């Protein structure tokens, strides 16, 4: 038994399909306790509405079409920002990982920019773009740029030099070496970057929408606060949690699909 196999086995046997419900036991229990606490009056409704009230508020918003519209707007902003910022970050990561010149030219600058919290730019962004779509897109793109850039760069830099030497010995051209050795070698690290980026993506969007927007989930929550609709506020927080989980599951599925060679992703 190789070391990698032993490590994979330490993580326990793969759960059968019926046991796929196990991760949801804790969230379900929390909702249940929450409901009971509200129903008995232990928690006053103006502090925290009962889950049933939140569900009811969700149902009303769903019927009016407001909920779907706001989710769609936020989802669109998130994915467009991720695509633009992630794309640019990936391109810089590739360029700086593969070319010494490019790295010398841009890495120092990027590291300086990286240390500015991107949310600190919100006042500036509002002055530049107002509160229209480009402001949110800019902030999300800036937020996801760095985790993807850094992890792509790190992934490429840490590809096993012995494998690269092997590729050269066996006569691989530069594009072939990239396609067959460097890119697959960097992929696990790129996925780490993607998952970090997904977290930052939601965070940035919530803040940006709460401060400067006229639609979207963040806006919906801020509106609800104005009218003291605490159930809608809680609802939007829960939706963020669900969307975050969804994004993470999607990236995990993509990981499992492309990294099936990796011992950590193999079926037992």
């Amino acid at each position, binding site marked *: 038994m190789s070391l990698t*196999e032993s490590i994979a086995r330490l993580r326990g046997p793969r759960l059968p399909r019926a046991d796929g419900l196990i991760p949801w036991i804790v969230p379900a229990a929390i909702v249940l306790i929450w409901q009971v606490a509200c129903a008995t009056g232990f928690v006053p409704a103006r502090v925290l509405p009962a889950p049933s009230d939140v569900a009811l508020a969700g149902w009303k918003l769903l019927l009016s079409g407001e909920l779907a519209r706001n989710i769609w707007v936020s989802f669109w902003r998130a994915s467009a920002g991720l695509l633009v910022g992630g794309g640019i970050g990936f391109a810089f990561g590739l360029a700086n990982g593969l070319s010494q010149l490019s790295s010398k030219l841009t890495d120092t600058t990027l590291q300086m920019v990286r240390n500015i919290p991107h949310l600190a730019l919100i006042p500036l962004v509002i002055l530049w773009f107002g509160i229209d779509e480009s402001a949110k897109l800019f902030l999300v793109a800036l937020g996801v740029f760095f985790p993807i850039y850094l992890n792509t760069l790190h992934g490429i830099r840490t590809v096993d030099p*012995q494998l690269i*030497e092997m590729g050269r*010995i*066996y*006569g691989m051209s530069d594009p072939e070496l990239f396609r*067959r050795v460097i890119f697959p070698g960097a992929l696990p690290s790129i996925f780490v970057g993607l998952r970090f980026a997904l977290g930052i993506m939601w965070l940035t969007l919530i803040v940006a929408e709460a401060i400067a927007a006229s639609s979207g989930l963040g806006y919906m929550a801020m509106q609800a606060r104005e009218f003291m609709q605490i159930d809608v506020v809680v609802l939007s927080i829960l939706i963020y949690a669900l969307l975050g989980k969804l994004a993470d599951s999607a990236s995990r599925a993509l990981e499992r699909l492309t990294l099936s*060679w*990796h011992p950590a992703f193999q079926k037992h």
Partner: protein
Amino acid sequence: MQEALHFGLPDAEAVGRVDYIEQARRLRRASSASSHGLPLTIRALRKSFGDNEVLRGIDLHVPAGQFVAIVGRSGCGKSTLLRLIAGLESIDAGTVSFGGETQPEDIRVMFQEPRLLPWARVISNVEVGLGRDRASVGASARAEKALIEVGLRDKRVEWPAALSGGQKQRVALARALVSDPRVLAFDEPLGALDALTRISMQRLLERVWGEQAFTAILVTHDVSEAVTLADRILVIEDGRIAHDVTVDIRRPRERGSADLAALEGSILRHLLNTADSP
């Protein structure tokens, strides 16, 4: 766990056919066509890394198809010599020639680490060895043939992570063999394997060398391995060839036999004497 119980099996056939290698060699010598291997000629070869002169003038001629082992203490320059022969390092002075034009596919190297692509199936890893012919129509058939040669045909769609150390090294051997090389350089290829896997790998190496008749250059720190496998043993000391020993023992050689042990002892004495002297 299962692996450990029958890991020697693919090579058991080699033990059965005791005279196989000798026969193959006789056939090869008898055929009028020149041997498949290439002769290797090295003249006044020098190599330094910074101020450290690693090779200080190597002169060597290896006839086509010979199995040469290079032994020496660590840091003596044996691995550098192999890397220069394989064209992995630039030459400071002197020449390395193979008696004519060579294609990159003619000279292959096998390292101590298997260096398999973890994200490619076993068969694709072997196809890498075809060099420029990788994309050709018969590529997968040739790769499969090489896998049969090393006894791993049933592993062709496995990921490398699912193989044992010895199996990985056999895939690396198949990758080196698939382009039908004329010179095969081994840099401690069995150094990371356990003792039993090592012996079965040595038998495999000897068998494929007997069948395919390439010129083999084996760098090793294991004198008994050198004595078992090689036609000729070069002892390198301080960047020069200190001893050039012909191993005139009939194949297949029996491990632990008296004449092998005697030869091993005398080479070890050479190495130890220089180690003790100031």
